[in-house]
């Protein structure tokens, strides 16, 4: 089957299903001591290089920003300035004066709501588009146009519609992360092998059974590729959206710090944003790994 318009950006939409990385097992060492040493060496080999690189970057940064006339603070200043924020992320002085934990958790809640909604609607619409030629012909051109609209361009419209920051932010998350989920799900459904459809036909599975027992597991690697791209986009969008809507949230925290010229706080927040984004991606990847255990290899 040829799939025309669904997927003009294969590099982005179809990554190969996440498979297990098998490493050649070296011969099992005889002594447990040498084995422990081998494992220790293995961990060291993974941990030491990034440590060295990080240390180098910090060093260069320190040297560059220590010079006279540097516009950004060196790492030592950043840590000194933000020591209170680092050591006590849980303080709450009311209003917007809260610890970083509260800002991050407010952002995460918005992402959770928008992303959950996008996952459900995205998988449902993707299934429809993947399964029905008519739905694909009708919906695909619309999807292809809408998915190129930048996240923040939706914000004024949603503010006008919802007249409130909170649902608007959630909507922006939703509309940003839904496209890769729809497109990848549709590709996954389209790629269900005819064999599985034949099995379902011989067993006379009804549409609901077919959906749960054949479609979802068969398309799972593709769906999770979409979900992974989606969570990344959500996190990108929330920070930008919160800068504009205000309220508690890491995006607003950054904007607020900028307005009061607390550059060190911005840098600290960026580190947290990066780490949280990384963790979110790992979580979805981990779920994908568990769920698609059987499907990846066939």
């Amino acid at each position, binding site marked *: 089957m040829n799939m025309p318009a669904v997927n003009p950006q294969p590099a982005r939409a179809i990554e190969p299903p996440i498979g297990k990385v098998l490493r050649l097992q070296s011969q099992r060492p005889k002594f447990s001591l040498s084995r422990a040493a081998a494992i220790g060496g293995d961990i060291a080999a993974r941990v030491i290089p990034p440590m060295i690189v990080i240390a180098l970057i910090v060093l260069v940064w320190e040297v560059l920003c220590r010079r006279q006339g540097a516009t950004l603070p060196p790492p030592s200043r950043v840590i000194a300035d933000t020591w209170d924020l680092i050591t006590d992320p849980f303080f709450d002085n009311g209003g917007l004066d809260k610890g970083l934990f509260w800002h991050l958790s407010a952002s995460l809640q918005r992402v959770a709501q928008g992303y959950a909604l996008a996952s459900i609607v995205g998988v449902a619409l993707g299934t429809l588009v993947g399964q029905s030629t008519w739905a694909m012909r009708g919906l695909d051109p619309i999807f292809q146009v809408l998915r190129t609209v930048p996240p923040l361009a939706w914000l004024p419209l949603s503010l006008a519609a919802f007249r409130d920051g909170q649902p608007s932010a959630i909507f922006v998350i939703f509309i940003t992360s839904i496209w890769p989920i729809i497109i990848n799900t549709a590709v996954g459904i389209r790629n269900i092998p005819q064999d599985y459809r*034949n099995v379902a*036909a*011989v*067993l*006379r599975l009804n549409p609901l059974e077919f959906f749960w027992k054949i479609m979802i597991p068969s398309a799972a690697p593709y769906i999770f590729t979409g979900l992974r791209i989606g969570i990344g986009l959500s996190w990108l969008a929330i920070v930008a959206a919160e800068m504009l809507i205000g309220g508690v949230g890491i995006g607003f925290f950054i904007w607020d710090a900028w307005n009061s010229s607390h550059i060190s706080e911005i840098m600290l927040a960026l580190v947290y944003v990066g780490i949280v984004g990384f963790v979110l991606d790992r979580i979805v990847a981990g779920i994908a790994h568990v769920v*698609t255990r*059987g*499907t990846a*290899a*066939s």
Partner: protein
Amino acid sequence: MTSYLRIDHVDKNFIRGGAETKVLSDVSLSVEKGQFVSIIGHSGCGKTTLLNIVAGLTRASTGGVLLENREVNDPGPDRAVVFQNHSLLPWLTVYDNVRLAVDKVHRSTKSRSERHAWTLHNLDLVQMTHAKDKRPAEISGGMKQRVGIARALAMEPKVLLLDEPFGALDALTRAHLQDSVMALHQKLGNTVLMITHDVDEAVLLSDRIVMMTNGPAAQIGEILDVPLVRPRKRLELAGNTTYLKCRQRVLEFLYERHRFVEAA
């Protein structure tokens, strides 16, 4: 005439992009209950197409299929298929692959514990109980075909359809599985329609061998009865004159009268 399974004047044309190809032309065949019938022919002549029509997975262009005098158009568990490439669901364990079929087909007639027992029974028939918790990726090709057979048998089909079930296997595994299928046929008395391109396999297993001419527009060229008593033993048959004669007939048909045409 009332046969158990009847393929009645079946034609099949595939239409793709305005071009029409005739794959099957006027195929008629009757199969009695409990019979083991093989269909043999060169690659691409339309064997799978014919089997799919019987299974209901493909519609005949004209003509039809009758099972117990009732026309069958849609796929269903009364005509269980063992597919050319096993078609186990890779995300389910061996047990769950069979259980899916058992749950679907026997939902109203068997209780939960009976369905569990029936699943294990069928895995036991093909000697796969030991691997019931493995996934298809973790077992060999021969084992996958066994599970495919167990899944089909578990549906208690009226007709068992086998599409080159041993095509992808090495000779030893193949012989072993042929013996298993023969033993199962002896024990359960299923009506079987099997596709093959292996002459020895056809003669060893079948009561009748249907030989198909080359496509396009393949037809039934000849039908050969194999009057060998059952149970049949591979080694004893090697020198049996009836066996050798049947083998000779099929070979002549395939390699002299209907040689595989490269261009086709």
